[in-house]
């Protein structure tokens, strides 16, 4: 245990050295002043909350879109399977930024939808659908055919089987990849700035440009995103550990 923490501290020290080296060699280091961002604190905090909201809402809705895509992929009708598969190819083949721009300028605007935030969340919910579908497929496959036979011969009804046997197992399997998807959404949410959503990246970018505090701004961005993602990664590892026994 002690040995492990020494290794951890050494690894941290290595990154500390790297930060020191960057700070030392930065040409404008005499003017470096994080405190000048302080007055913009409430605005930045608000945008941080908005980013969190966008991410959680996108995760929530992507579970629905993912479920619909999952149903399409296991449908007996080839038509639905093809609809799902084509959508998968579109998403897997297009960069998120292009998908967001296309959703907003080519679909939402012509349809008269101007709420950038909602369009952003919708774009994410659709973009994440194939990833969510994969998570669901993996979770369903984690329950082997023998269990379904046991459910049958023990006389459980379908709803009892889902309530007491299938869903509790799926939830355990689904959590770590779900959190992985959430961190992906959080990081990707910065791309909503291209359609003018005032999320964290957009706000800090604007503030740093106004105050000419580029290094300080990017450093703050870096830290604020990590403040969201690191606890989530830790939570995911904790759940994985809990589930593995």
């Amino acid at each position: 245990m002690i040995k492990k923490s020494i290794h951890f501290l050494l690894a941290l020290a290595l990154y500390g050295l790297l930060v020191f080296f960057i700070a030392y060699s930065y040409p404008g280091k005499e003017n470096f002043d994080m405190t000048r961002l302080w007055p913009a604190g409430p605005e930045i905090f608000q945008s941080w909350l908005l980013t969190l909201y966008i991410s959680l809402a996108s995760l929530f809705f992507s579970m629905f879109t993912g479920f619909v895509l999952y149903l399409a992929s296991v449908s007996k009708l080839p038509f639905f399977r093809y609809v799902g598969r084509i959508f998968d190819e579109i998403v897997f083949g297009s960069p998120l930024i292009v998908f967001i721009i296309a959703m907003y300028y080519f679909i939402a605007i012509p349809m008269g939808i101007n709420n950038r935030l909602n369009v952003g969340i919708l774009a994410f919910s659709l973009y994440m659908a194939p990833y969510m579908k994969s998570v669901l497929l993996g979770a369903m496959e984690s329950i082997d055919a023998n269990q379904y036979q046991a459910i049958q011969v023990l006389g459980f009804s379908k709803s009892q089987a889902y309530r007491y046997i299938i869903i509790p197992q799926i939830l355990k399997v689904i959590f770590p990849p779900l959190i992985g998807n959430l961190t992906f959404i959080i990081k990707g949410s910065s791309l909503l700035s291209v359609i003018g959503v005032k999320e964290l990246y957009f706000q800090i970018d604007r503030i740093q440009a106004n105050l000419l505090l580029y290094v300080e701004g990017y450093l703050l961005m870096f830290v604020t995103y990590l403040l969201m993602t690191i606890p989530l990664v830790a939570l995911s590892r904790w759940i994985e550990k809990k589930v593995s026994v």
Partner: protein
Amino acid sequence: MKINLNNINHSYHGKAILQDISLKLEHAEAIAIIGPSGAGKSTLLRLMSKIENPDAGEIFVNDIDVVLTEAKDYYKKVGFVFQSHNLFPHLTALRNITLVLEKVHNKTPQEATKLAIDLLTQFELVEHMNKKPIQLSGGQAQRVSIIRSLAINPEVMFLDEPTSALDPILTREVLRTILKLREKNMRFVIVTHELGFAKKVADYILYMEDGRIVEHGPTSILENPKTESLKEFVEFVME
């Protein structure tokens, strides 16, 4: 136990697995189905336990029309034990038993727990009741699965090669449990490769080959087989 099979035919992907099987038994208590691999033993058991329905023919178990009876009604009266234990991995041994009792057989949680603990005690598994299946040995898990089946007090139990996934030591453990079922006068049909065990536990033998029942009768047919194929099979297995 009464078993009545009328002209059962069954196939998978066009390949005939069971061919025109008919059988009428009135008073068998413990039936062992034996025979070489691919003879159709497990398929016959799966049809009798309604895991599948036959392509053609009628099956009656204790006068219940297995094909026509609703699955949920049939499974209130019969139990099934698979080759692998098939316990639910997220539940403890105890909960694997009580869940069925509470949700399917409408017992109160107190009744279900009492019954499950009684059985686990009788079968010397009570100290493992709070373990998840992954924490049990293969033999212990299979025994819990037998108890789960037994707990509903079925009219008949079907056991499909319950020791095939186990090593010889764990096999003995499970076979002892099945002998205990017999002592409790539980009626069952078992598919097994353990000929010695079949002799010990069963009072009736079905010998199958190539999707047909080639010979059947009381356990003594293993000592004095009438057909050449059963004779060869017994000699081969006992070698």
